[in-house]
């Protein structure tokens, strides 16, 4: 199969999945306990007011028609309106996505930056004490409840030693946010040479990034170690050894690229998790990102916001998968031409 046909096929599958996702999200909101009208109308609303709202929100129409309207709206980028913020969900999510992205990328870089070398190191010293130690680290990191770790870090570094800034958001109140360029505070403050802001933003990032990266480090360590071991145990490494290539050359020329192919998948999964799944950490650190938004929407029964969040997260996830697959295909010639 040619590459372009492969991509087209994958895209078609992705489109089907996305349609399914939209329908699932639509149905989810119908099943959530409580009634969106009640939430909008408030505790003491009369039936008349609610009926009026119901018509206004189009909820009196038959379900398939509502679904059609919903799909139409979603395709036009209209995700509805948040009852809590009063803004369109699109605006809200647009604002929070970069916030989450900053935390996610930072954690990914830290976790990958530490986890991958550790995993590779462990594989290279397979069976040694150091290998065992690194494996233990990975096992502990995978077993740590992320919400608990966040709390412990806050207790130690903020409440007890007062080293870290208050675990509230991205910046201290008295610090001006930088001019928006990339929407990433750290990058923007660096680009605008705003050191105070940079330091403050970095300070706020430290604890949540540690929390997240400890937890997502495990897959990096494990995957790097396993795939490195697999590669090292593979016939072509033995063959390369038999040719007199040094370990360094072999690792650089033969092993790393093969390991990276595996790690790409892990990175995709981890990034997806970080972008979408860190509801817990964002809640604990009041990090004004997607997860925190979703959490507030969920407890506040902000239906459009929940729908919007779930949808956006699923779309990100699906596309991340798609791009990981694509990158995989581009790197590994076996898949490309299989």
């Amino acid at each position: 199969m040619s590459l372009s046909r492969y991509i087209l096929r994958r895209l078609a599958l992705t489109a089907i999945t996305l349609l399914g996702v939209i329908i699932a999200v639509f149905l989810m909101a119908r099943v959530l306990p409580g009634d969106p009208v009640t939430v909008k109308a408030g505790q003491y609303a009369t039936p008349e007011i609610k009926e009026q709202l119901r018509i206004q929100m189009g909820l009196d129409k038959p379900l398939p028609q509502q679904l059609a309207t919903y799909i139409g709206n979603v395709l036009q980028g209209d995700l509805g309106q948040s009852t809590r913020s009063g803004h369109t969900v699109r605006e809200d999510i647009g604002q929070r996505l970069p916030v989450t992205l900053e935390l996610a990328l930072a954690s990914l870089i830290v976790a990958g930056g530490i986890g991958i070398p550790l995993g590779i190191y462990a594989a290279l010293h397979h069976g040694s004490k150091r290998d065992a130690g690194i494996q233990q680290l990975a096992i502990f990191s995978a077993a740590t409840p992320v919400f608990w770790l966040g709390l412990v870090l806050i207790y130690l570094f903020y409440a007890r030693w007062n080293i870290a800034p208050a675990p509230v958001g991205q910046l201290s109140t008295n610090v001006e946010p930088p001019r928006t360029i990339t929407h990433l505070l750290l990058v923007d403050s660096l680009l605008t040479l705003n050191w105070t802001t940079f330091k403050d933003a970095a300070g706020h990032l430290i604890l949540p990034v540690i929390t997240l990266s400890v937890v997502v480090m495990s897959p990096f360590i494990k995957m790097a170690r396993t795939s490195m071991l697999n590669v090292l145990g593979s016939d072509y490494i033995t063959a390369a050894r038999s040719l007199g290539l040094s370990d360094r050359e072999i690792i650089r020329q033969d092993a790393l690229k093969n390991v990276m192919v595996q790690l790409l998948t892990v990175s995709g999964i981890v990034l997806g998790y970080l972008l979408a799944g860190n509801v817990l950490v964002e809640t604990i650190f009041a990090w004004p990102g997607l997860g925190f938004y979703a959490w507030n929407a969920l407890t506040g029964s902000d239906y459009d916001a929940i729908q919007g969040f779930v949808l956006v997260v699923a779309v990100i996830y699906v596309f991340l998968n798609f791009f990981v697959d694509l990158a995989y295909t581009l790197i590994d010639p076996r898949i490309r031409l299989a």
Partner: protein
Amino acid sequence: MTEMHRPLLAIEHLSIGFPNERDGTMHPVVRDSSFVVNRNEVVGLVGESGSGKTQTAMSVLRLTKPPGQVLHGRILLDGDDILQMNDIQLRQVRGNRAAMIFQSPRTSLNPLMTIGNQVGRIYTRQRGMKKKDAGDATLEMLRRVGIAGPARVAASYPHQLSGGMAQRVMIAMMLACDPELLIADEPTTGLDVTIQAQIFELIQEIQQETHMALLLITHDLGVIAEVCQRVVVMQLGRIVEIAPVDTLFADPVHPYTRRLVGSILRPDLEVLPAAARGNDFPPVVLEVGGDRYQAVSVDSWRSVNVGRPEMVEVAPGHQVLAHAVDAPSEAVA
């Protein structure tokens, strides 16, 4: 020329162990094995699956995969003990003085690297060539191993090659190393009969051309008979018999060897070999008492506690593994 008397490769009392997964005890897969390969000699190492022949071959280039390890013994390449070498010395042996062809050529090539790069890097590394020269040399070498479109093959990835083609590439890589000793580990397993013939023809041709020593590992006695001068037979980690090829086929001593030779199916003969009739063979050991040899089934032998088996020379250049006993017990096979 005293050097001529020294064998190119001498394996002395080699034992290789793999740990038991449960308790970590080392389990020998090769034990107390000794044999030599002389210059310009083709030696066959034969045995059925699990006999330890591949592990023996791997250990020669110190390629035993951890957690397996050489427990004991020496591997002398032209007098230098490979097991005692440091990394730098070792790298000068590998791909230079000795090289190896592996069982599955397609998995022995890096799937993410083009053939041209994989062959070319031998030239840049071992011969210190410039990249461009290495490229030219690569094409030349591919042509030499009988690859029709060397440029196209050089640009392809391993998965795009057939098994036979991949094995030709492996051979090209070995040739690029220009070794004194070539170890070929089942180089035609998994290939079609007609392709096998091609590959053997190529290997033989190259051996005759370069006069390198060849250690050929195979389970196929037919191949041994066609290619080798001397044969080493392994069974369950032990070398049980070493003999010149003609002697081995004409006059095998060890019961295992006899059974192997006896079970050869020949397309030119209609009758089944008599030695092989009946049921599956029970494991058998050889007892030697005085000058009498006796095959004994393991079951009956086990009850008699005997010392370790040793290689006994039954004729010049013909050795066999036997357990020394006072007097051979009753025959079984």
